[in-house]
């Protein structure tokens, strides 16, 4: 069976290996440069007292490569679309299941070998990629925190890849046609990923809230934290959210009302206003990675069980 899998899918492996090799070279070259820039900057910035400007001074010329690294967020999806979705669907579409499943190995054996290899391949590729990206981003991680690039480093890229593959297999076993399987995998994967990232992930653990002096910007929040929301809090403890309307501002701070000068933060601070932020602290990064990865692994197990059912129980 391993031989059959290799003969049928070796070209996909060659292409994926070439793409990964090219990306590896690019990231190692640029990552090494970035790391040395970072070290030399901090070695000298204290002399000019410009260390706090690191975020704006470093890595300014690396826009394209940063975009490319951020784009690796789609890689797990590609395994689902181009490896997994056609895996079962193409057999049905071309009728070759009639050939494969009347040879001397059982349908279950055929499926297990294929499923095992596509998972091994997707996990290997995604694992290599996340190690590379995590290393490449280490200066950025030190400056702005890992939560900024939660989806492309740590262990979640592997979980996403496993999920994309399981989804592609499951959808392919329903539709038995390649194009509908690919289209549905695309839609379902994006839906699950976006819903999880936007609506579920912020609530993995109860967010912390912190009151900060008004004079500081949100940079006053703990370094590397994932800031969920922020706003003004009044002297009576009332939360105003992101904005405050002019009639809520103490009269003394209304500088020439509607005269175009607006409200001065210092005046509000004097009148007992603070700002507040809710956030997930940087120390929770790995806990969040673990929770998110677990969600996608559990979904994947369910999808694989479903695929077995569809392939083994339904008529070929």
């Amino acid at each position: 069976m391993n031989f059959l899998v290799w003969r049928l899918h070796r070209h996909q492996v060659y292409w994926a290996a070439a793409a990964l090799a090219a990306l590896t070279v690019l990231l190692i070259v640029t990552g090494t440069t970035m790391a040395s820039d970072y070290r030399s900057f901090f070695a000298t910035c204290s002399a000019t007292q410009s260390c706090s400007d690191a975020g704006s001074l470093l890595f300014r010329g690396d826009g394209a490569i940063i975009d490319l690294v951020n784009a690796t967020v789609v890689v797990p999806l590609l395994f689902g679309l181009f490896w997994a979705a056609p895996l079962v669907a193409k057999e049905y579409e071309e009728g070759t299941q009639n050939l494969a499943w009347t040879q001397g190995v059982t349908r279950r054996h055929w499926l297990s070998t294929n499923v095992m290899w596509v998972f091994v391949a997707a996990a290997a590729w995604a694992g290599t990629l996340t190690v590379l990206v995590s290393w490449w981003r280490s200066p950025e991680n030190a400056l702005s925190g890992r939560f900024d690039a939660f989806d492309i480093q740590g262990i979640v890229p592997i979980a996403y890849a496993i999920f994309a593959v399981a989804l592609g297999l499951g959808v392919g076993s329903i539709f038995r046609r390649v194009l509908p399987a690919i289209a549905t995998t695309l839609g379902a994967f994006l839906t699950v990923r976006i819903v999880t990232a936007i609506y579920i992930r912020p609530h993995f653990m109860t967010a912390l809230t912190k009151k900060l002096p008004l004079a500081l910007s949100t940079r006053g929040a703990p370094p590397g934290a994932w800031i969920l929301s922020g706003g003004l809090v009044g002297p009576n403890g009332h939360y105003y959210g992101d904005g405050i309307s002019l009639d809520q501002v103490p009269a003394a701070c209304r500088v020439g009302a509607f005269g175009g000068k607006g409200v001065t933060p210092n005046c509000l601070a004097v009148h007992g206003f603070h700002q507040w932020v809710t956030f997930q602290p940087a120390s929770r990064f790995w806990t969040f990675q673990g929770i998110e990865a677990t969600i996608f692994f559990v979904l994947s197990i369910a999808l694989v069980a479903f695929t077995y059912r569809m392939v083994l129980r339904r008529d070929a």
Partner: protein
Amino acid sequence: MTLAIETIGLGKRYGTTWALQDCSIQVPQGRVSALVGPNGAGKTTLLRLLVGLSRPTSGQAEILGLAPGPSEEFLSRIGYLAQEVPLYRRLSADDHLAIGAHLNANWDSSGARERLAALRVPTDRPIATLSGGQRAQVALGLALAKRPQVLLLDEPVAALDPLARREFLVSLSEAVAEGDLSVVLSSHLLHDLERVCDHVILLASSRTQICDDIDTVLASHKMLLGPRQTVSRTKQGLDVIKATHTANQTRLLVRLDAPVLDPTWEVSEVSLEEIVLAYMGMREVASPGPLTTVRTAS
């Protein structure tokens, strides 16, 4: 001796439509059986049930005493060639033979290679570049290389031109002559298969109408010619398959077990094709001549 194929009340329903119903057949080993019937009679359904690609809604089937299903013991004994001649388009015949060698315990690559070489089928080119006849030969080669004891072929010659059709059937006959192999070939045209078959299974209206050796079928069916008369489905102990009438004569195709004693009937032999067409409810091509009205009795 174990039967090559035995089914009891086998049926398959898709939604509300029965593709095959109440199919009970027995095929002894060593036969080359023609599975014939009109389009939609359930030939493909029967073959897919027999190889375990689909599951019956009712009844049961056995091949060499084993129920079709996911066991290597069963799979090692059957060979199957589906109607659309499925092969991996980007792989070559050599690739397919190499894969087969990895998937089957009792694989015979060299025999298949010799057969394909004799037919000048290129084995190193992708399947997509081969002609329909060459693909059918590759697929047959793969099915035979498995060394099955029961080989099931679904309309293997339907898409082939007459020459490729002939070569295919010759290859099959040679393989049958070499070893003890039971074969079922389906076709909606008996004519394609008659030369190589010694057994016939006729499906019509989703049911089995005939399942017997061709010699037995021929011996038990006669054409009776007599004065014009009305006939019922069973007449004087005869099973009337089909009746045609001319102005003053009645012609009956009957199935019978004993000689016809009534001297008013003139008894003649009838060809297998006529028998099969009669069961399918089709009318033979009218012979040329001064015919008057021709009506078909129900």
